[in-house]
């Protein structure tokens, strides 16, 4: 098995609600996997269990054969899992470049260094990462001045700083204009290909999903109801039922 990520029988309930119910899937190296489903389907809950923010009731998550359940988020990050947030989270009192440098500093285990000047460390690596997401021109700007779409791209650069095997992106394009969405995901897809990173992302915009995802998982009320390529998912009657009235979305996606 060359699976980068293997999720088995993952489960979590809040009170009586089965937010995630017996979810299993696996992910190959370099695969670009979309996790879709209506609001409240359990996508975020699922993500938060993968990256250690939430403790599952049961199940297992293995990264390259190593169990992740029970590890705190920072350990999971060190094992090679990067993430972006649904609502961007960056260091607003630093410049764009410094935000990336922070991830690099942590990756090189220098966060307890009391003497070097942080802003002079790993400058070239940070600039290379910013180049990758076409943000190098804004490197010296305070992060607090960035437009939302730029923050999303910055988060992508941060998430790639420690050369992760796996990238988790929860609604990476939320809050962006439609044209920006396509651009961001095209960029991400390109990086996936270039670097051989595996990605799991959730997304509302079906255009985006069908355009780039290699494979799609559909979640509804905590359960996986379908899995397959864009064409298979589009034709799946169960999925059509869940997305009732969303049929037009699928039609629109046909020529994306």
């Amino acid at each position, binding site marked *: 098995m060359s699976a980068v990520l293997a999720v088995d029988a993952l489960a979590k309930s809040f009170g009586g609600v089965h937010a995630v119910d017996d979810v299993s899937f696996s992910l190959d190296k370099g695969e670009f996997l979309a996790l879709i489903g209506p609001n409240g389907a359990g996508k975020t809950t699922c993500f938060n269990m993968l990256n250690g923010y939430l403790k599952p009731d049961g199940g297992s998550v293995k990264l390259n054969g190593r169990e992740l359940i029970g590890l705190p988020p920072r350990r999971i990050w060190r094992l090679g899992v990067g*993430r972006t947030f649904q609502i961007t989270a960056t*260091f*607003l009192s630093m410049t764009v470049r410094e935000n990336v440098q922070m991830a690099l500093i942590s*990756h090189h285990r220098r966060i307890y260094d*009391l003497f070097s*000047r942080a802003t002079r460390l790993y400058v070239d690596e940070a600039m290379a990462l910013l180049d990758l997401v076409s943000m190098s021109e804004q490197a010296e700007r305070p992060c607090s001045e960035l437009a939302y779409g730029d923050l999303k791209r910055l988060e992508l650069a941060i998430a790639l700083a420690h050369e992760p095997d796996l990238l988790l992106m929860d609604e990476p394009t939320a809050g962006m204009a439609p044209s920006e969405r396509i651009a961001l995901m095209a960029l991400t897809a390109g990086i996936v290909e270039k670097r051989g990173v595996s990605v799991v992302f959730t997304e509302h915009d079906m255009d985006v999903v069908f355009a780039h995802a290699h494979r799609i998982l559909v979640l509804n009320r905590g359960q996986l109801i379908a899995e397959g390529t864009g064409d298979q998912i589009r034709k799946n009657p169960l999925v059509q039922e869940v997305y009732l009235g969303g049929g037009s979305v699928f039609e629109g996606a046909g020529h994306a």
Partner: protein
Amino acid sequence: MGFYLAQLLTGLANASSLFLIASGLSIIFGVTRIVNFAHGSFYMVGAYLAYSLVTWLDGGILGFWFSIVLAALLVGVIGLVVELIILRRIYHAPELFQLVATFGVVLIVQDATLAIWGAEDLLGPRAPGLDSAVRILGEPIPEYDLALIAIGPAVLLAIWLVFHRTRWGVLVRAATQDREMVGALGVNQAWLFSATFILGSFLAGLGGALQIPREAVSLQMDLSIIGEAFVVTVIGGMGSVSGAFIAAVLISVLNAFAILIFPQISIVLPFVVMAVVLIVRPYGIFGRPGSEHGGTEDPDQPLRLLSGKGAMMLAAAVMALALSPVFVADFTMILLVDVMVATLFAVSLHFMMGVGGMVSFGHAAYFGVGAYAAAMAVKLLGLGMIPAMLLAPFGAALAALFFGWFCVRLSGVYLAMLTLAAAQILWGVTFQWQDVTGGDDGILGVWPAAWASSDRVYFYIAFALCIGGIWALRRAAHSPFGYVLRGVRDSRIRAEAIGVDTRFHQWMGFTVAGAFAGLAGVVFAFSKGSVFPDALGIAQSIDGLIMVLLGGIHALAGPILGAAAFVLIEDWVTRLDYWRVIFGGIILVIVLLAPDGIAGGVNRLMRLLRRDAA
């Protein structure tokens, strides 16, 4: 048996007094999210007003109770005035600004009280009709205590009825739970806040007024009660009136019995209880998360390394300071040592608050531990000056390591309160532990070694330690460690997501800040030749906060400018009679008109100049 009952009843009577003041504090916090230091002042003014009214009316039972209520009402009006003039403008400011602003009010009220009633303690009359004691199981119990025991729950009931049976009360409760919601309902917030402030101040005034038959009315009443009132509020859960009641009873009764076993405990007991409760229930008994932060700030600007020109200017300033002993008088040199000590202290506090985002109301604890550790190393261990100077900052670091472990589990106002508790515990220990710390008398004769005893030589020792410390902290702020600390402040979730153990990092930041505060304390101890418990007191902590604020919290240079300005202003102002009014006024002007402090003002000026030049 009778004896224990008597202890219990005394405890309950104290609980009633404490509840009255704490409930007002809690209600005000619940609705306005302001931690009101001036609440103790309202309590004190209530006592003074009641004293005057009772002695002036001299009207028997009716006159007494009429005076008490009238005094409380007048305090309510004073509270309204303070709210309208000052607090209304800072509801959306970060908690640090609110705290310091209300402390400015404390200073002003102190001088106003001094001007009106004089410096002498005033012995109040007994309550007519309740001036003797009844015997219960053979023990004499003051009748007035029994009345107080009844008044506490009666007021609790009255507040409950107001909160559950009136529209206004329902709004107050809604606002306490969710401030945004009330705004959304279209309620007139300004009116709601003012009314809340009147009620809260009224309760503080009532608490003070009811105190006159029990204790002398004095100018120390404000700060002596406020610490305990904070504790009760925090234990109960900020914003919860019934929580305040339970906490008041808990503390007072525990205290009544604990002093039987260990008489010295009463000063530290409330703070120990608070520390324990906060560790078990981080938001107090009935508190909810989400209420711990004041308004949000605009994000800081990114740090900049010094430019060539800046470095040259800084080097010139340091050189000028280094050469100053050549051309200034001895007393100026002593003043300059004070400035350097204050600056290092302020920079260490800024490292914790500005860089680390942990607001501390009790930073003096580590300053004081450093000072005491040095003094004790000399006096008890017989060490020389240099070994004592090297050792003592580690003492402060240990204290910070110990208390920091608890503090970083919380955030916002709760963290600040726990730092205050830590400082008060340490203060209580030094104050009470006569044999080791000398208690109130302090430790005398902590003089520098013979070779360093001239003012000039000691100036250079202080210069080396303080400037070295400031430089090290500045370097640390620019280091990966400092950047990560700032990162945790900016976004804990992001810091965790790039592999940072955020709590551990804050803990280490806390410890570093404590160690350097300790270094300042060491220099201080040898420059004064003595140490007293004041070194760990609330006033010293507040001084640090004012320095940081005065200089500007958003700039690394802020605490340096602020501390220098503070010491110079203090040196000048404290020679005047009513210096507190002046100081309080300065504080309010900064908070209300120039919240980015001197550094912010300088920045704006520079930008203006640059624009003109361009």
